[in-house]
């Protein structure tokens, strides 16, 4: 078996036990139902429609060709209200869970530490093959960005919320968030 196929197998395995976007929508769909949003049955291949159903906006946040290795781009998501500060980064060829692009190394995360809400803008670090966010200036939490924002060391109450991405040609879209943003009771603010 070639190295490439082996990797693909890994990706399939990964898809099974980690949330891919469709599964994510399913989970947040049921939660959104409680907030009186319509829940519809999932039809494969119609993910985009589901994104609107659960209320997350589809927002263009950058272009693959414009990303430079390990240089984060800031954006706000899912809205411009409090604690929407997030970053998009291409992690220099280090493959990541939820990564997009040909090397699956393009990811996006909230900047807000899920411990006590420290803002980690400027705390992205590339050390060898590791890509982390942290230490948070407040209480030193560090998150692994190759592994869906899992805690490396620290005190956070949940993983760093990952912004789910979709690629259309060269364009990168934010389409959802996995995990609750600090300071919110719901990622989607009722208008």
């Amino acid at each position, binding site marked *: 078996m070639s190295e490439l196929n082996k990797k693909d197998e890994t990706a399939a395995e990964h898809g099974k036990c980690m949330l891919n976007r469709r599964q994510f929508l399913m989970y947040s769909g049921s939660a959104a139902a409680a907030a009186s949003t319509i829940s519809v049955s999932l039809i494969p291949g119609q993910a985009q429609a589901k994104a609107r159903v659960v209320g997350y906006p589809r927002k263009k946040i950058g272009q693959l060709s414009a990303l430079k290795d390990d240089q984060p781009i800031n954006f706000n998501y899912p809205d411009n209200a*409090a604690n929407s500060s997030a970053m998009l980064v291409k992690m220099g060829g280090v493959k990541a869970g939820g990564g997009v692009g040909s090397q699956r190394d393009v990811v996006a995360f909230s900047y807000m530490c899920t411990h006590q809400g420290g803002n980690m803008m400027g705390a992205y670090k590339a050390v060898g093959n590791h890509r982390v966010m942290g230490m948070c200036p407040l209480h*030193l939490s560090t998150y692994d960005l190759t592994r869906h924002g899992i805690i490396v060391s620290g005190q956070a109450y949940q993983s760093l919320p990952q912004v789910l991405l979709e690629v259309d040609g060269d364009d990168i879209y934010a389409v959802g968030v996995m995990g609750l*943003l600090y300071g919110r009771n719901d990622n989607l603010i009722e208008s």
Partner: protein
Amino acid sequence: MSSKYYIPSDNTPLPPKSAEVLTTCCDYCIVACGYKIYRWPVGSADGGPKASDNAFNTSFPNAAPMSPWVAPTQHNVVMHKGRPHNVVIIPDKDAKVVNFTGDSSIRGGTIAQKCYNPDSPTRDRLQSPMIRINGTLQPVSWDLALDVATDVMKHVVKEHGANAYGMKTFSYQYLENTYAASKFGRRHMKTANFTFHDTPADVTSTPGFRDAGFDNFAASYQDWRDAEVLMICGCDPYETKTIIFNQFIKPAIDAGQKTVWINVRETAGIAYAKSKGNALFLQIDPGTDTPVMGSIARVIMENGWEDSEWIKNWVNDKWGSSSGFGQGTRNTPWQWRTTWGKFQTKGYEDYKKWVLSQDEYIPENAAKIANIDAADILKAAEMLSGGGKTRPKTSFGIEKGFYWSNNTANTNVVSSLATICGAGGRPGQMVSRFGGHQRGGTGGGKYPRNKSPQKRPGRRRQALDCDRFFYAGHTRLAHVVGTTWIQAMCGTGGLNSKFEELVTNNPNQVRSWNREDIVKTLNARADSGGTVVINHDIYLRDPIGSKYADIVFPAATWGESDFTRANGERRIRLYSKFYDAPGDAKPDWWIFAQLGQRMGFDGFDWKDANQVCEESSRFSRGNRKAYHMVKVAAHREGKTLHEKFRELGTTGIQGPTFINEKTGALEGTVRQHDTTATEEMWKDRSGGTNMMSKKWTHFKSQTGRVNIQKHPWSLFSDFWEWTKPKGDELWHTNGRINEVWQSGFDDVDRRAYISQRWPENWTEIHPDDAAKRGIESGDQVMLYSNRVPNFKATIKGVHGSDFNFADLLKNGWIELEEAAVSAVAIVTPNVKKGTMYSYFLNTSQPSNVLQGRIPDQISGNYNYKMGVSKVKKIGESKYKSEFRSMSFAPRNIV
């Protein structure tokens, strides 16, 4: 969240204005942060995002850091008075002590997940008493289980003596439970076969502190902040006492506090301190703290940098050292050691002379033993003492990596080093443990030392090593309360086989539901030389519960009964009951009450937890927690003790407690051994039922001054030399990790968020050691050894050196065992080259199997941190290629 898979949610309910609010503290580490529970019935409206619509009076989204917020892991649904209720459990945002600003660790922060909820991985909580019948644990009534248990207890004690009944119990799960357990096991069963969860014998954790006169928890958290120089030995408080670091040490480091660390491993707190430019990290080889700290002391004394004024006033001279002994000359630990002549000095000059005469304390030699740079020893001496310039306020904090490496000499050496630096009895100049578990012990009976069959050379009997006693087949009934026993000890492979032999493989196994038949069978097991096992726990533990227990009692725990407990600065708080215990589970004090009544013992007729607490209070008088005066104050106000504690909320009160007879106020105590306290401050605290102890203002020694002691390396060096890696071996040490710390019984198995981070056993290995063996991060490796030394029998010492490791080996008391565990490799430069660091207690792969079962010959504790192992790759774990679980990023990225 019904799965062990972590599925992050993107919303969470807010408590409504109408939510009931109760206070508690975190159940886990020593720091015991204050928490608030918000409870409201399922089916009534949740709170809304507007400040006017929720219990926090806060609008969401809220941009302010450290404001009230509910993460999805902080909400749960529990039964309260038979009806489902929402609970949100978050750190107390109004906390006035400990966790200011409502800070918390990852462990306490997600404590809501601990609560029993059949929709969550807590669904396997024990709910009914069980008896093993036909090889399977079967639910039975409380009456049957308790009757059988006490029938067998009576038989075993009558036929085989009190010591044939052994109790292995937690020492910390709340004052009410530990009081009931020790009243039952010690005062009434009168067994010397009694010990706690973390030690093979009922002995002090810090023999050097005890003999110097230092209480383990003399310091207050503010002392760690107020020190100008802080020496931190064998732990990283960021990892294992998070809020002490976050709220006291980190702000101090930011303001210029210098830190000196002695550890094998660099984690986030050490890395952070180093990044601020005012830290010195002594990354030693395991077990070499004594030569390093002894040589620091030597440098200080050679240069005349010691605190002469302090030494003159507060260190025992020749006469002080020899006088008194407090308890009479025959039966104090201090006395028998002085007989031996290994520790006692004639005062400071004698100590200095001794240190200067020992070659291992020459910095170059010490550096060679510890595998560090000798220049760092000089630097440390200068930092700790001020190097002849202005003397800084220096404090010393120790924990398990330090005192479980070379238990006696390490605690001796830190006591002496601290003393010559002027630390021990002044604000910001203290010596203490940082702490492990919370302090929930109250003695309901005295340990009957004179009934112990174990004896040291010389005159004195020693607290019984219950592991060795069990191993030798003397324990006919093992009563195991809330501990795994087997995996938590050293060299556990042999202990496990012994349980299998004495319990499972004994032919007398229960085949009947009839009480008389069951009792007859279990009695026959005991009479035939086998062992009967009774186990209390909240979950069925493997193997003590699942494989070995004949009788299982389901325990109620945190949140399921009112409880009280103290933290590492002696702060006592009430832990409120806020939901129904699952099924028929009962708090341990209740279980002991039932057992005690059936045994015909007096004073086991408690009706509620408060009654137990009130009865126990007088036994706390004179000790560091001394909460008796809280009861006196409560009764004066017509309240119960628990009601009074409830009123004190998350602030609680620091023991020892007093009633100021002038003002009538209930007062706590900031620190013990406070030599700066004036008579004026203390005069109104005497009289009435107040009890004075000299250790509040002096030291806990025969004179009130510090005993400056020798710290002989030679009592340990034979073991250290023998252990030292040979050939392809590496040092193997183990310990805790921030994300799972004093919380393993909940976390790794039952908290999806934590189990995704640490799904399996792991070991850290240095990149150079890994490369040599073809090991990469994520590889499955085998840690194995064919020379795990086990001290196998209960013996009496006769000659002075009988308990030296070399003599034990020569005389055939040491058995070498094979042991192996598998682990996921984490290749990281944060561990010292030549040393592997594993998680200490993965219950299915306990790395303690590799650690020698050799109790410290002076204290009787295990030196858990001392082991060696070979390592080889046996495959690749799935974590190497998947993204869902684990992380291989080093813990010291700043």
